[in-house]
């Protein structure tokens, strides 16, 4: 690739808060998205700390059951829709134009629209939570993040209405963000960058966006039906009037299953970049990874009912969904072997981003492989809604999603801020996270195998030991994350100057620019050979 010409900034943004409210600049918006995601990670984490404190011992000590339900539901909604997804969107905003040599995202104003709906959505979700302390309403939604108990949704209080409208607002946000990515990737590439030369991160985001565009409207439609059933007298989900409560589950999981890949695909896209950089090798199996991502995208739309295997589907459906779900393991293992190929015979060094990338591989592998057990219908009868499941999806969400996001954060932080972070503290953060993460979630596997259901505020004595360990681990994990704040804040404030290249083996257009890149980049597209 040729040297890129970075144009000098020639128009000046507003000053102060107005700059951020009105900005159409992809870097500003990327930073906004990422900061929002980071803050929400702590909010969601704080909620679950209360949950783990309640679960420290059997018995009800701190929370009423209703409050418990609200806390884990808000935890999940905030972590998924408030932390991981916005953070990944922030990365795409900042990086995609740099990676493909575009002046900005294709639809900058729409981009601003998509971001600034998020804070409003978060406020809307949390209003009922605070209202209950003033004696109004019965609190925020406490029905699980996917609201899978239809009839319970219908009879619950105002929290669920707030949640429904939050979902509708999030729908607008996801849709605008996704359309922006698709248009940018399809229309804004620098001359010479054919699709099959596009960096994997951009590919992964293109596919993610495609999934969002197809899946998110179904979620909105489901939320709309729930709303009309609750308040306008329709009967989508009422058996006595020919409806079916299971219909909502179908619609919601039709979105919910692709959603878990929406969360993970950006991470899958950036891991190869990081592995390649620190192995000082070109990306391994580029084509294979692109095809595998496409295959996962396709498969994710035809397996949703594996979340409903105990709801009494017909036999044929159970068998179909079992086999279809197992098929996902094939393209996913293509990715795993490509990561292996990426480091094989490289010249590896182990800076913090590399550690997190390898940690991602190790933990995601555990989560995904346990996922392989779940679709077996007979075994699923034990695992469904038990803590086995909680462990499975934290190994994928945290061990996959969050580890991936942290790898990306450390990898590109010097690019964003122009300063290097404290490498020693970074490594310390990594090792503490790995250890406390496993202390938190391994015991949940055993509690689950032993028969502990999820969503319970209180549990039988046989599960005490495992819950105690898990809670202690969770507190450690939480405290460890404070270290991350310290590292990031220090790096933003100052530190050794980062070069444009940042990492010795870094490749890609974004590393041809100075760190931090100028406010406007690639006003004239660079030539890619």
């Amino acid at each position: 690739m040729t040297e890129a010409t970075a144009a000098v900034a020639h128009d000046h943004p507003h000053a102060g808060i107005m700059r951020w409210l009105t900005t159409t600049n992809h870097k500003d918006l990327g930073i906004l998205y990422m900061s929002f995601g980071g803050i929400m990670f702590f909010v969601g984490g704080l909620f679950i700390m209360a949950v783990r404190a309640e679960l420290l011992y059997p018995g009800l000590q701190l929370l009423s059951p209703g409050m418990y339900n609200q806390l884990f539901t808000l935890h999940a909604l905030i972590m998924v829709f408030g932390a991981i997804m916005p953070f990944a969107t922030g990365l795409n905003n900042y990086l995609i134009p740099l990676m493909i040599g575009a002046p900005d995202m294709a639809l900058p104003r729409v981009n601003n629209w998509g971001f600034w709906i998020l804070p409003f959505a978060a406020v809307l979700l949390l209003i009922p939570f605070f209202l209950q302390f003033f004696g109004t309403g019965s609190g925020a939604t406490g029905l699980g993040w996917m609201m899978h108990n239809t009839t319970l949704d219908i009879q619950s209080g105002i929290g669920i209405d707030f949640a429904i409208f939050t979902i509708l607002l999030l729908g607008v946000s996801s849709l605008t963000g996704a359309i922006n990515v698709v248009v940018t990737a399809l229309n804004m590439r620098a001359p010479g960058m054919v699709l099959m030369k596009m960096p994997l991160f951009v590919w992964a985001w293109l596919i993610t966006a495609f999934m969002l565009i197809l899946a998110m409207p179904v979620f909105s439609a489901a939320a709309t039906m729930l709303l009309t059933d609750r308040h306008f007298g329709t009967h989508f989900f009422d058996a006595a009037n020919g409806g079916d409560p299971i219909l909502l589950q179908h619609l919601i999981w039709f979105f919910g299953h692709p959603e878990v890949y929406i969360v993970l695909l950006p991470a899958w896209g950036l891991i190869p970049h990081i592995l390649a950089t620190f192995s000082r090798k070109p990306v391994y199996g580029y084509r294979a990874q692109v095809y595998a991502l496409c295959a996962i995208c396709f498969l994710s739309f035809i397996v949703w009912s594996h979340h409903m295997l105990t709801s009494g589907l017909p036999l044929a459906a159970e068998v179909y969904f079992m086999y279809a779900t197992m098929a996902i393991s094939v393209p996913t293992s293509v990715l795993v072997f490509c990561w292996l190929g990426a480091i094989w015979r490289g010249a590896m060094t182990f800076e913090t981003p590399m550690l997190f990338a390898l940690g991602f591989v190790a933990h995601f592998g555990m989560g995904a492989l346990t996922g392989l057990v779940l679709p077996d219908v007979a075994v699923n009868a034990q695992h469904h809604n038990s803590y086995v499941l909680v462990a499975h999806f934290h190994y994928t969400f945290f061990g996959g999603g969050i580890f991936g996001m942290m790898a990306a954060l450390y990898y590109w932080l010097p690019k964003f801020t122009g300063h290097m972070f404290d490498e020693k503290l970074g490594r310390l953060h990594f090792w503490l996270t790995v250890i406390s993460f496993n202390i938190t979630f391994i015991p949940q596997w055993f509690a689950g195998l032993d028969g502990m259901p999820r969503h319970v505020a209180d549990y039988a004595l046989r599960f005490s030991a495992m819950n105690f360990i898990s809670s202690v681990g969770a507190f450690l994990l939480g405290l460890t994350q404070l270290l991350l704040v310290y590292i990031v804040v220090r790096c933003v404030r100052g530190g050794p100057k980062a070069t444009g290249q940042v990492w010795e083996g870094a490749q890609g257009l974004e590393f041809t620019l100075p760190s931090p890149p100028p406010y406007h980049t690639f006003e004239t597209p660079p030539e890619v050979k």
Partner: protein
Amino acid sequence: MELAGASIHDDPAIRVWRLPFSFCSRHETANFHIRQIKKQLPLWFWIAFFLFVSEPAHAKSIWDFQEPVTPVARTSLAASVEFMRIIMGIYIAVFAVFAYSIFKHRKSSGAQPGTFTGPGSRRQWILAITPFLLLIYIDYIWMGIPAFHAISRMEDTRTAADMTVKVTASQWKWQYEYPDEGISFVSAMATSQGQIHGREAKGEHYLLEVDNPLILPTNKKVRILLISTDVIHSWWVPSFGVKRDAVPGYLREMWVNIEKPGIYRGQCAQLCGDGHSFMPIVVEAVAEPQFNEWVAQKKAQSSQAEAVAGKAWSREELMAKGDEVYKVVCSACHQADGKGLPGAFPALSGSSIVNGPMLDKEGHLFKDGHLDRVMNGKPGTAMQAFKNSLSDAEIAAVVTYERNSFGNRMGDMVQPAQVKALR
């Protein structure tokens, strides 16, 4: 209700988290004390971790479910253990290669980076393809075919079923019905609020005990039908290997064939509102003769109850019975003191419905009357139609009780015979 003969040692639920290395005996673990957990933390954790990342000979017992006692549960346990082994194997194999690479191909040991971007030679292609073939073989042949048979058997609820039980779920209790014998009763959690809130010591079956357990005969194929009156619940007893949702309006089916007498405990497994943690299931499996005896006894009881219902009850009888019913059925929502939970469940103390007329002037139910609310519930809310699950006497008693407790002083009462006429 513990049947004679079923000793505590047969109870699988007692096997509280037993590790292969028994440094903590069965009975100690049963009243697990927090101090012990603290003391054992490092050891517990490291053993668990060790067992997880390697697979020593004892590993089987750590993957174990609760003791399986039905054919379905044994199949799924076997499948699960086998699957766990396979994925452990895959994980170790793949991670070993990763680890090898991490240790060998580092810059500090002078490795020169390769420049390849995909499999090059024929040998490398074969190496790259093999794992996928293996994975497909594992997915669809090794595990896929037995899984298919297991599912077909699990879903075959009707062939050669010996008896049928209907389970009706509602917030937060189970109603069990033996249609052939004409028996029906409600089963709710028996653990006291004191234990939950730490005012009393926790019993050994904390949260896993009920007032009326489901009694089933051993070695019979029992077809279980599930339905719900309000929200979706899920009936799960780990030892039976079955979990199935109870959906309002739609029948769901499953079956069990318990091979060993004993007491088996489980819980509702679908988030169903505030009482979800407190919706246990207890099944007592007894040999057939004992079961028949129990059926006969239960039938005698209910015909007696019918006779009693016909008579005129005194206020004291109604109040005593009402107190009993209220504690079991209603207090989960309206609370023991009748104050409800603001925002979720209305207070009965001082309620205008409770302190209003029971019936209209012609002696019929009317909308939002006290008897109507209890018998027909309020559709779309957690307040269900109790005429489906309570007897005439129970309804009469609880309504009388509510009108004369929690500071309500209506002074009137209603007879079971009146309720019967209103159905």
